[in-house]
């Protein structure tokens, strides 16, 4: 479904991605692991067109999407849920969710209402706070809003960046439960970036370990969890 081949991205003069090659198949949950600053988030941003990549290719469902505009990429069915949540604090919870349908150009009004109901089903707290400003939510609720907003367009592929950062363990487990449920019942394809390798491996089918802008090793969750090298690199 998603193919990255030898992707190179620069921030000014620093060479962040030095040739990333990875695949995500339909229905898979794939995680990107690695320490801070190895290029995990940049990989997602490059896919989304938020940073320009200089070399290599990105294909989504057979179509080249490299260096297209972010809104065009979103409209093809890729949803980006960023690491710092970035919900619209000055918009109400409902408005935030409805903004999430912007990329679903063919969705009718009643379909959007259905998606809203579905979001409220998975995240009941959001229904309770529907008309409140996004800025009044707690950290965990904001993360739920960010995820729900990213799913409103009924995406084919979800890019999820550090969903558990700065959250209390109880909230993290609640979120993992919901994400698992979502993946099972909505047949979601997920590319997950997570610093906490133990959590990520529990949720995923396959993973890639990044180091200094390159894929160091890849494999099934079982292989990665047992690999000595991975344990060391990801601080397991």
């Amino acid at each position, binding site marked *: 479904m998603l193919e990255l081949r030898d992707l190179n991205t620069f921030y000014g003069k620093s060479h962040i991605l030095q040739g990333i090659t990875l695949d995500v198949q339909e229905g898979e949950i794939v995680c990107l692991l690695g320490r801070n600053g190895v290029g995990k988030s940049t990989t997602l941003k490059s896919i989304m067109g938020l940073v320009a990549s200089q070399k290599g290719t990105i294909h989504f469902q057979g179509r080249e999407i490299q260096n297209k505009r972010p809104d065009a990429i979103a*409209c093809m069915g890729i949803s980006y849920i960023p690491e710092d949540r970035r919900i*619209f604090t000055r918009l109400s919870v409902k408005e935030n969710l409805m903004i999430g349908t*912007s990329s679903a150009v063919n969705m009718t009004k009643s379909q959007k209402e259905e998606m809203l109901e579905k979001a409220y089903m998975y995240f009941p707290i959001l229904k309770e706070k529907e008309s409140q400003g996004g800025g009044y939510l707690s950290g965990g609720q904001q993360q739920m809003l960010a995820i729900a907003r990213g799913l409103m*367009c009924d995406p084919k592929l979800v890019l999820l960046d550090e969903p558990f950062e700065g959250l209390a363990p109880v909230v993290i487990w609640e979120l993992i439960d919901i994400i698992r449920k979502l993946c099972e019942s909505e047949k979601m394809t997920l590319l997950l970036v997570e610093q906490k390798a133990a959590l990520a491996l529990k949720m995923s089918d396959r993973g890639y370990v990044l180091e200094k802008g390159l894929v160091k090793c890849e494999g099934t969750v079982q292989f990665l969890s047992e690999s000595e090298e991975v344990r060391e690199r990801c601080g397991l």
Partner: protein
Amino acid sequence: MVDYLIYVILPQVLHGLVWGTVIAFIALGLTIIFGLMDIVNFAHGEYYMVGAFMGYTVMSVIPNFWIAVPVAVVAVALLGLFTEFVLFRRLYGRDPIFHLLLTFGLGMMFREAAQLIWGADTRRIEAPVTATIEFIGMVYPVYRLLILGIGICVILLIWYVLRYTSVGAKIRAVAQDRTMAWALGIRVPVIYTSVFMCGVALAGFAGVLMSPINFVYPTMGIDVILRAFIVVVIGGLGNIMGALLASLMIGEIEALASIWISPTIAETLVFIILIITMIVRPAGLFGKAER
């Protein structure tokens, strides 16, 4: 005493409201454009001037004010589309000094171009409604009340669109986090262009509405943009409600003060208020310190 209230104070209060509405038109465009794309448009007053001149030109061919108004507004909107597409688009995300240079220069070019095309003379458009209305003994021109009515409707419309429609929510989303809005599939460049067009069209609308009351001349934009800037600063940059309240305040202060002191000195009063605001509340009377 009652006579003084009816014949002196009341007309000035109404004048102040009308003037405040016109300033609000300019200031709203200015503050919405700033809130959305972080650009302070120093050429904004010139769109007001172009609106008035377009109205004047249409009137000299087809002497019907109600045809001149929509034609002028559409013409200014198209000018806005052209300038955004060719010039402003290059400014997004750049250092504010470029914004200042480009928009200041653009304003100068517009003024000089207007002088070349229409000459430096002051002109005037016939008011479409010359009737007056009598209210508890005071006589007041209907046309000014008409401006006030139109102004209130337009402001309510803008507020409704921004607050309660999905387009309004998108505009607010882009204003807060452009990148995230873009990644969610909002076509940010389209939002920028259309909001800029609407903002300058609003200024053009004010220009043509005011042309039967004020004179039409190439530098007319400067008088109004100065006040609009003051209003935007007093109201807090990017704060729509603040701009509205400050517009009415400035309009009233100028109108009422000119009862007792000469209108030129009344103008200075506005600047004094600005200075005091800047000292006491640098973020604006209605602004929040965080912005």
